[in-house]
């Protein structure tokens, strides 16, 4: 009996020390779940989810404050990925936050721009170039299509233009014969 007590004590001490060491040695800084959720979000920083950017929304999801269906730019793919990550059921996009739109890019009509810099301050990714009383322009490659530059513009010179499909961005469509059982049964 005595030996059993000693054995258990030694075992408990060793495991305790090991766990204690592991807690210090492998300490994880920050919240890995927030990073994982943030990696799925489309990073438009548009705020349609009611949070000021993708990372705050990710934090809110991780804390259970926000639902996974509040991101219109991400659409169904993002909801599905979030559902898989969090082990939840996917649900349709919450229409209160907006609808899925084709990818757009902001274009400034340079003849109408008065150089007020308001759009530059509104852009979450610094994709607008310009200076006070000088014409502004959008760096199309960096624009996320968040539309945040549109409301502040006093002369309404910013338009959202759908991104044009080219031969190199073109995707093969989903094969037509995908409803194979339907086709098979209609052939009978």
């Amino acid at each position, binding site marked *: 009996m005595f030996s059993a007590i000693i054995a258990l004590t030694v075992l408990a001490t060793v495991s305790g020390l090991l766990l204690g060491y592991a807690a210090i040695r492998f300490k994880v800084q920050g919240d890995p779940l927030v990073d994982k959720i*943030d990696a799925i*979000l*489309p*990073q*438009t*920083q548009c705020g349609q989810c009611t949070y000021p*950017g*993708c990372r705050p929304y990710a934090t809110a999801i991780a804390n259970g404050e926000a639902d996974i269906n509040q991101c219109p730019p991400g659409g169904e*793919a993002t909801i599905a990925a979030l559902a898989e990550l969090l082990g939840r059921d996917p649900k349709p996009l919450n229409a209160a936050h907006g609808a899925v739109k084709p990818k757009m890019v902001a274009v400034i009509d340079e003849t109408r721009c008065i150089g007020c810099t308001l759009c530059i301050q509104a852009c*979450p*990714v*610094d*994709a607008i170039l310009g200076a006070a009383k000088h014409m502004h322009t959008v760096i199309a490659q*960096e624009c*996320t299509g968040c539309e945040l530059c549109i409301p502040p513009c006093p002369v309404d010179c910013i338009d959202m233009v759908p991104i044009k*499909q*080219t*031969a*190199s*961005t*073109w*995707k*093969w*469509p*989903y*094969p037509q*014969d*995908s409803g*194979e*059982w339907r*086709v*098979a049964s*209609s*052939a009978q």
Partner: protein
Amino acid sequence: MNKLWRFPGGLHLPGHKDESTAVSVAAAQLPRFLVLPLQQHIGEPAKALVKVGDHILKGQMIAKASGYVSAPVHASSSGTVVEIGERPIPHPSGLHALCIVIETDGQDTWLPHHPVEDYRQLDPSALRNIIREAGIVGLGGAGFPTYIKLNRGADKVIDTLILNGAECEPYITCDDMLMRERPEEIIAGLFIMRHALQARACIIGIEDNKPHAIDALARVIHDLKVKDIRVAPIPTRYPAGGEKQLIKVLTGREVPSNGLPLHIGVVCQNVATATAVYRAITYGEPLISRYVTVSGPGIQQPRNLEVLLGTPIRELIEQCGGAPDDSGTFLMGGPMMGFPLHNLAAPVIKTTNCILAQPPAAPAQPVLPCIRCGVCAEACPVSLLPQQLYWHAAAKDFTKAQSYNLFDCIECGCCTSVCPSNIQLVDYYRFAKTEIAAQELEKRKADTARNRHEFRLQRLERDKAERAARHEQKKASLSDPATSAKNDAKPDVIQAAIERVQAKRAASDESSGSVPAQH
């Protein structure tokens, strides 16, 4: 006899090659308008160097390469630039793309060109530069810039340069005719490429259904009495002309997944590319024409034509007695890997090896469920599991599809053609591949946006902190006794001034008061 190896799977297909090899190659007629897309290769599109109204000469560079993986475009005949705009291109999407349209003047006047005296005097990098400037890309079908494939890197040794003359797809005979008619040019090009790569042995792989081509090349090699170059007839089995399959057959080596032939000491080039390299070095001619097979049922005179790049496909079909209508029954490429042309106004580009008139559409076979028979896996030349790939691609489970090495699929079409359920397997793989590529692009863009947003937040935070620090400093300077003494000195100065003024006034009062007193 040199040993040959075997690649897995593959199919024996009816060749249909004799139809188009009966007559020798003739030059296609000079079209009135040449339409030259800025992108005829893999990589970045070229950038136009000319503007509407410019008169240009044959062989003049009209668009320059933009970036490392890119190729310039040259005028295939002399004339005037009449338009730079969106035109139909030969692409499975049927989309339009930026093209330079030249109205030919019929003179076919060459720009003076500068041949290389002796390529052996040039170092490989200078040679590659000439090949790049000549706009040469792989003419076998993929269109990858040749000069990049001729760069072996400082630490690699190429022991075998393979020339691909297998031409395994049914109907296509342009490489066959080139080997029959211009074997000297091919061998000369092979020497140049061997010099650029500093490669040792060269093997020309040709399927054994092309005895004339094998004879022609063997004769040239025999006459030149060169060692280290040999013609290797290989068994006819589709897709023996696939780069990795040909390397396996000729050397027994396998190109690793996600790897390049370069990594196993092999470089593989098409025979037509060798001719283009020869002409670029020996005559200074850029790539402006190629052999194109026009064949298939519905074409009265199936044959090969030497076509100027930019010639509308419709004109080729007319010259071979076909009935060009825009019903989409013409393919670019062969029956296995080709794609339907949406618009016959699309031009011949660097990668156009064949224009194939499809037989009238057979009654559509009903598509049945996959019965997991495994015939597709037996036919696959890359040893993939087509039914698993199909399953996951159809379910849009791209991660799973990639775990079954989706990107090793060469889209040869063997699995589709053997499927007893008539499932268009390759269409699913193509769908999944482009979908994954698009998702990866989105991911990269999202990462950039995240970085830029985080940097912006950091910058705003820094600005705020700097402003706060400035305020703090000012405040501190007001309350700090050392500096406040300086500040306190200010009232003293004022006080002193007041006192000075008062003293002055007092003095003047005194004097004024005293003066009248004196009077």
